[in-house]
């Protein structure tokens, strides 16, 4: 089975462990990390937008932002890839920069379609952002969109309510 695993900034290796627990490791695993450049664009609008009295945008101030995004994406992907190879998955990796006005959730759905995946694995939310662990607010925007628009089955990983050692 081709499985698309949507890796966030953190927790990629824990995700891989959970996937192995649920479906085993005899699958082709596509690791996808989408760089959400929305916050960086907001930063650039703040630095160079109206009200800054036409300060000349300096490449030295913009390039580190893009480089930081890519470095973080590489690190997240590398963690997940190492765990996946260790677990015995057949791994393919991809880091997708956000395309124009595209959103991570759209890119995940599009990638699943393009790669012919039978399962998308995604976390309910990107870590503890103050979201409750269950209930309507427990699923973030990206996961909600993927659930609604996915061309295949979706495995939603939640923050564990019960310590797995006590099961």
């Amino acid at each position: 089975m081709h499985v698309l695993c949507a890796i966030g900034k953190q927790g990629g290796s824990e995700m891989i462990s959970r996937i192995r627990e649920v479906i085993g490791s005899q699958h082709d695993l596509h690791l996808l990390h989408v760089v959400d450049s929305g916050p960086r664009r907001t930063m650039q609008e703040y630095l160079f937008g109206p009200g800054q009295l036409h300060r000349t945008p300096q490449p030295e101030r913009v390039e580190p932002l893009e480089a930081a995004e890519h470095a973080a994406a590489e690190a997240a992907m590398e963690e997940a890839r190492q765990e996946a190879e260790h677990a015995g998955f057949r791994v393919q990796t991809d880091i997708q920069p956000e395309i124009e006005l595209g959103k991570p959730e759209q890119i995940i759905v599009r990638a699943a379609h393009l790669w012919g995946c039978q399962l998308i694995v995604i976390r309910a939310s990107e870590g503890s952002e103050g979201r409750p662990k269950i209930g309507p607010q427990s699923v973030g925007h990206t996961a909600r969109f993927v659930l609604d628009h996915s061309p295949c089955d979706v495995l939603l990983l939640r923050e564990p309510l019960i310590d797995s050692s006590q099961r």
Partner: protein
Amino acid sequence: MLHIIFGILIFALTLSVIMVRPYHVSEALAAAVGATLMLIGGYILPGEALQVLKGQWNIYGFFLGLMIISAVADQAGIFDILAAQTGRLAKGSALRLLLGVFLLGMIITAFLSNDATALILTPVVFAMVTRLRLPPLPFMFACTFIADTASFLLPVSNPINILFLDSFGGGLGVYLQHMLLPALFCISFNIALFLFLFRGDLRRKYKLKDLPSTEPPNRPFFRFTLFSLGVIAVAFVMASSFQIPLSLVALGGAVLLLTGGWRYGHLKWKRLRGEISWALFIFISGMFLVIRGIENLGLTKAFASVLMQLAGTNPLRSSLIVGISTALGANLINNVPMAIVATSTLRAMGVSSQAHLGLIYAAILGCDLGPNLTTVGSLATMLWLLILRRKGLEVSSVEYFKLGILVVPVMVAVGAILIGLGK
């Protein structure tokens, strides 16, 4: 009568173009055209215009000096190294890192002014937390908010403060007597609220190995710059105490750092030139002349009498009215023209430096804090960002506005009350 109406129209049109920026017209051009029309219309005479501009030499020098100091410090790696050290001291805790960013922002704002924090520290911190795989927006908002919240800690912390103190005088002792408690309250409130609002994100950890290097690009130049910044900070405090024009310290500091940069062969001069916003000087000059034009028409006096009626004689009430109106005004137009309007209005109210200190400091508070309400101190900018949001861009600018609504009214109100009580 027609003469007065045209004068008001020139003023209103200048402010409208600054707010809305049709066809991407720059604020500097709008202010320059407004000033030219005031001259042509005879609302201000050429000789008077020259006197007005000559009289503002301290603010020009201060702006120029500060921009150079910040730009050289940036090239020496001061902001990058300090941010990285903050990351090391926080030992992997996002909560401690946010506190550290607030503290660093407060110190930089206090001695290098709010622009250094808002425009230089913010992207440095943003890049660092992105590498650490932490959510960047809480840290970006921390930098941009503390840049304004801490900007009335000292006279040097915001060029706006110099505008007021040049008009009304006042040494460091008197300044701190009125502003220290409000500043400490606003900074504490800002930090506490952010720790609460972003508590979910702040439970995260990061790896120290992901931090950027603390090795400066040119170690001798870095040490020289760090030492020089310490000297400049002390000089600013002493100059404030003895009421020596701060532009002399700023320009002196700039010369010192430029000399060091040339000596160590580290400065990129083209980049330095790009960091200086020459349009800012045209903008400020234009606004000084436009507002002098309406002052000559007696409009600021009329506005002052309305304000006096609203404010009454109660010091608390008058501080609140002035603080709130300047904060709102700083959001309708940029906070620099608002500060110029406010100084002109306060002079028209017959405010003297001794009798009505509370009103002067309440106006400083409003002009300094007002920009926290929207991203860059202009409701027009907010509208522009909302339009971009509809095109699918990041909505964090709206989140900024929501944060501002929570933070700014309380800070302005409590700050103004503390100033009023301190009279």
